[in-house]
């Protein structure tokens, strides 16, 4: 018996909906086996991983905090990826947004006004957008590969942050440690509920996702993004400019990453320090694809990935397993999601030896046709 993949005549709507759930079930089964092999009770492990964090108001807040930057960056990236602009440098735009936004509370720390916070947020978005403008300019004018240029600019941003907190912005009250002064209360994003730490950053994330969902679905711009992403030539015939799309998508995703950066620094860290992100800009790439580049899907994916982080800690603590388990889980999940997506475009067919000839030929033909499309 052989297993063959046969291309479907058109993408399956049923599996497009089902595949993430199949992936989730497979992840849970594989994860359970992993816990069992580690000598831990798989049921209680999975319980503290996926359920326990949802039962506590405190940890719900923590999930929201963790999800906010992932969603905010992820929806921005979805515009890039849908229009065929591969911005991999959201991490750098996140950092530059955080630095630009911090100009107000660090350099003008004696200025107290309700305008401080709005200005910080605007500066943050401008900072992120300007940083994304570099790969956008290079691609639009010199046809440079934006994957490489945006990725390499991440390291530049990281070192720039490192330098600025050790050098010009180092806190005079910090024993020479590499941190800026703490932000004053008016420079800190307010918490939205009394029950926990969730701040306005989460609201930004949800609003941004809804706006972009609306844009993609109901506006000409959304149509333009889709058309240019699927076929640049067709887009050109329709009068859309792919050069302007480079600028639009890169600046938009840069601004959102910058907003995520300044929100994280203002709401959670309250100062700049050499490391302000555990890799949100990169994890957001996973989130964007897990959410199928659909803003509503990205909200769900962001929340789910945040759950795996928070749940991973809970498991570490209750069962004393290594922190690597969390990473393995996230890896398993991504692997299963990607492989289950095969079902949207392909059918699985079991081929039995007796009947191979005819069926096999059909499958090959199907594959060839699929390839030629």
């Amino acid at each position: 018996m052989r297993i063959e993949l046969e291309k479907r005549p058109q993408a399956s709507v049923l599996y497009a909906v089902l595949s993430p759930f199949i992936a989730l079930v497979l992840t849970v089964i594989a994860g359970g086996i992993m816990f069992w092999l580690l000598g831990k009770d798989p049921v209680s492990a999975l319980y503290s991983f996926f359920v326990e964090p949802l039962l506590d108001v405190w940890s719900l807040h923590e999930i929201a905090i963790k999800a906010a930057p992932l969603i905010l960056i992820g929806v921005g990236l979805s515009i890039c990826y849908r229009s065929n602009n591969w911005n991999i440098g959201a991490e750098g735009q996140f950092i530059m947004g955080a630095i630009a936004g911090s100009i107000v509370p660090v350099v003008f720390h004696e200025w107290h006004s309700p305008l401080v916070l709005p200005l910080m947020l605007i500066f943050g978005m401008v900072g992120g957008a300007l940083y994304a403008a570099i790969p956008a300019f290079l691609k639009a004018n010199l046809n440079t590969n934006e994957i490489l240029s945006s990725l390499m600019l991440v390291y530049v941003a990281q070192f720039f942050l490192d330098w600025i907190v050790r050098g010009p912005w180092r806190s005079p009250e910090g024993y020479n440690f590499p941190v800026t002064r703490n932000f004053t209360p008016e420079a800190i994003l307010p918490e939205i509920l009394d029950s926990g730490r969730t701040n306005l950053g989460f609201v930004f994330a949800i609003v941004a996702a809804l706006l972009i969902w609306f844009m993609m679905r109901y506006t000409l711009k959304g149509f333009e993004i889709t058309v240019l992403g699927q076929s640049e030539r067709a887009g050109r015939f329709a009068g859309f400019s792919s050069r302007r799309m480079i600028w639009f998508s890169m600046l938009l995703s840069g601004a959102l990453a910058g907003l995520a950066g300044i929100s994280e620094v203002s709401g959670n860290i309250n100062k700049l320090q050499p490391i302000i992100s555990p890799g949100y800009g990169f994890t957001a790439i996973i989130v964007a694809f897990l959410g199928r580049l659909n803003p509503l899907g990205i909200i769900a994916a962001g929340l789910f990935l945040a759950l795996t982080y928070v749940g991973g800690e809970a498991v570490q603590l209750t069962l004393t397993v290594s922190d690597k388990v969390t990473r393995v889980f996230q890896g398993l999940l991504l692997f299963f999601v990607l492989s289950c997506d095969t079902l949207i475009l392909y059918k699985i067919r079991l081929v039995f030896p007796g009947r191979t000839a005819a069926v096999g030929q059909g499958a090959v033909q199907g594959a060839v046709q699929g390839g030629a499309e």
Partner: protein
Amino acid sequence: MKKLLLALATSAAVLGFAASASAQDKTKICFIYVGSKTDGGWTQAHDIGRQALQAEFGDKIETPFLESVPEGPDAERAIERMARSGCALVFTTSFGFMDATIKVAEKFPDVKFEHATGFKSAPNVATYNSRFYEGRYIQGQIAAKMSQKGVAGYIASFPIPEVVMGINAFVHGAQSVNPDFKVKVIWANTWFDPGKEADAAKALIDQGVDILTQHTDTTAPMQVAAERGIKAFGQASDMIKAGPETQLTAIVDTWGAYYIKRTKELLDGTWKSEQVWDGLKDGILTMAPYTNMPDDVKKMAEDTEAKIRSGELHPFTGPIKKQDGSEWLKDGEKPEDGVLLGMNFYIAGVDDKLPQ
């Protein structure tokens, strides 16, 4: 079916009750690690301390821990989780956990916290640190004796006072033996990254150093030194296994004694917030056996160690000049602890520009 469900529910309830009852009897002493507990260096030294603590008190305490917690907003969540899970005392074992520890401590005034290597404290937050520079001074002396070329390589992590102080102590120790001794520094900008640390070690050796020392957490530099046939010093844990013929000695952090002492105080109800900075004489810092060196060098190292222990010798005793040639300490002068803890300049003899 109903019966089965009922049985399951009852047994679950009984189990749950039993679990909570046994948990209540034990005091929870919790640990937050920045790296992996098997890093062979900094975090492993803390984990060995934790195991010593567990062995000392046996069934009376539990010692849960979270490892590889990134310094930043994640740290606050991890520490808060500890506080919420019923920990009575939480040790946060990296400098970058400082503000997060203070923030969480404000929310949980009944939980006690101890933060390693920081400078902020509160009524329920103590700090503890070790005078690593004492060991580095000894290492400097050994390096000066053992090096043919008179140049050592130093793999540093972040240019914070703690690390700068270590470099200066090493240089000053070396110059007490060979006044022309030089040190080259590479900043790895990480505490824990075997790849980067190994690259830094290779780069230093290519630049002509013949002794290697490190202020990063893994055994990678030791392994590179072993491959290239030069001598090296271990950091935080005894790294002799990574270089049986390479390691001269290592600064070994023996946190266990401190953890046991503080836990005892907690159980007795005498725990107070303090800012502790102990050294060789208090047993929080020990030197791994002096190996792979001639007897006279070993003798010198042991003498110096004894002098530091007895208080006869302070590693930073003047005259010492800063790198720019200006005077830092006059003849016989010793620095105050506050000055050491905020050190942001090199002394003369360091072949590097301090990242500012």
